[in-house]
């Protein structure tokens, strides 16, 4: 059981690396999805271990959430990059102090 938890942690860490290291917004977004799924894996593993279906309910909620998030997020990405026609996130640097 802790095997799956470790796996989840590893996937999450990989996703974390992706969020920071990627330059284009869409690829950052994909890394975020990876992180969400790692969390889901942990939920399901716990559900299995404790004999309680609540973990799976949580995972279901997360999936629904992710779907909504993707819809809105991609919409934002499309809108932003239509206005900019630049693909690098580093170019969105107008809020510098």
């Amino acid at each position, binding site marked *: 059981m802790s095997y799956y938890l470790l796996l989840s942690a590893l996937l999450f860490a990989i996703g974390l690396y992706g969020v920071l290291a990627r330059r284009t917004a869409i690829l950052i977004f*994909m890394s975020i999805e990876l992180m969400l799924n790692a969390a889901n894996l942990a939920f399901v593993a716990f559900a299995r271990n404790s004999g309680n279906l609540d973990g799976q309910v949580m995972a279901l909620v997360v999936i629904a959430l992710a779907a909504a998030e993707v819809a809105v997020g991609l919409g934002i990405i499309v809108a932003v990059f239509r206005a900019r026609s630049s693909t690098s996130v*580093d170019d969105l640097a107008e809020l510098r102090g």
Partner: protein
Amino acid sequence: MSAFDLIAGVLLVASALAAVTLKNAVHAGLALVGNFLVLATVYFALEAQFLGWIQIIVYAGAVMVLFLFVIMLLFDAKADVGTGRMPWMRPLAAALAAVFFLALAYAFSGVGPVHPLAEIKLAGGLPGPLGRLLYGPWLYVVLLIAVLLFAATVAAVVLVQPGVRGARKKPQVLERERELGEVDR
């Protein structure tokens, strides 16, 4: 730990690494799709059948397809090249991720099954029992999710409306675009 677990684990990690490192965006997306599919099989093994099907249908089938559409619509597939303006980011990210994993691994190391595995009766994670839970104690959550999905739909539609008629790009944007011609590609 069965063979299945091992193989699944290797596949998951490999596809994840591929998804975060491949330069070609489409390739990365496809790697992620593979990751999700393997994850679905893991769900089946962990007695979450309903969830597994949902994973395939919604995540791999809808979300990732959406991603791939957007990538192919808007992006030059070889866009993510070079380290851009922050060369120190890659090593830092790797370091942070490593520390993170180690900390979490240490935290998880003491966790074991609550009951002996033999006695666990999850009823396979079938729709029936899951549904009873959803519309029982977790009803409010379900309702909230419904509202959320509605809001997301509206937002998505609004966001992709064409801009105000006559809106021009801001001077900074035009300047940037001129600059981008010289950025290392």
